């Protein structure tokens, strides 16, 4: 039962990672500008390096959280697990409420929670990305700006994966799938551009699906909180 709960929590965390909109939004802008400014090969290079940047930061953050959790829970001064679990529940509920209310700004378009100055600079970087390193940095930067929503998930997932018995192959498989989850939407965006869909269609779809994304994010955070209350406290 415990393993099933861990698997459930990790799958919900993967779902949240895949539904976060900042990295995919910046990536769609990069794809649009790169295909407008450069030949196909160079545009493709920039897109691949953006994905690599996003994946690298996801792996680094997950490993940092895994190491931090290992020291916290398996070190000599193990804290009261109940208190940590209640903190995780509180944070998940707060994030669920934030996703429902503040994830998207009011008004037209699909403007996100990030400050407008940051959004403008990300737009500018996406527009002016010339080299592979620019694209890689931009991908990593987007992963960092999503931290308010992803950091608690990395910590919860690291603990859950650690709690699973290492004999289960599923823990390795889940770790592998979890660190791949943030790039799944990027691969989908890249594929949509490859099959000749445009930024206009993607932007319209993002606006159309705003409420669906809000609901999925809030539902997943809330379910994680309920699973922790029922099975971990």
């Amino acid at each position, binding site marked *: 039962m415990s393993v099933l709960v861990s698997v459930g929590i990790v799958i919900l965390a993967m779902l949240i990672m895949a539904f976060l909109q900042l990295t995919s939004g910046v990536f769609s802008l990069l794809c649009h500008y790169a295909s*407008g400014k450069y030949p196909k090969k160079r545009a493709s290079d920039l897109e691949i390096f953006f994905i690599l940047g996003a994946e690298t930061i996801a792996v680094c953050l997950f490993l940092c959280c895994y190491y931090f959790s290992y020291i916290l829970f398996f070190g000599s001064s193990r804290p009261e697990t109940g208190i940590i679990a209640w903190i995780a529940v509180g944070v998940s509920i707060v994030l669920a409420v934030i996703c429902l209310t503040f994830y998207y700004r009011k008004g*037209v*378009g699909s403007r996100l929670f990030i400050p407008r100055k940051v959004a403008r600079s990300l737009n500018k970087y996406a527009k002016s990305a010339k080299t592979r390193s620019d694209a890689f940095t931009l991908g990593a930067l987007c992963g960092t700006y999503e931290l308010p929503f992803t950091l608690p998930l990395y910590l919860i997932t690291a603990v859950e994966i650690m709690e699973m018995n290492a004999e289960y192959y599923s823990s390795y498989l889940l770790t592998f799938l979890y660190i791949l989850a943030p790039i799944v939407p990027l691969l989908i965006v890249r594929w949509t551009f490859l099959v000749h869909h445009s*930024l206009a269609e993607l932007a319209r779809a993002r606006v159309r699906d705003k409420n669906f994304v809000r609901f999925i994010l809030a539902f997943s955070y809330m379910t994680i909180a309920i699973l922790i209350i029922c099975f971990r406290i």
Partner: protein
Amino acid sequence: MNTKPFDEKLLRKELKIDARGLGIPSGAADAFIDCVISKVEKSFRNKKIITESDLKRAVGKELKKYNADFAYVYQNRDKII
């Protein structure tokens, strides 16, 4: 107030990037862009100062006559993230 002169070259460059990104053939894109810029310049001929949003609205309105996706991207690209 922070003002700057209307930069037709910059507008043309931005529109060309958007057009190529949307897969509009370059000949057709150049023709749209010429028409749009000349109409926008004509409509603002009597005004000394215009805001960026006025310019955006006018260009978007003209672009919409030629290509709805082009107009949508031009008007909404800063509202995507």
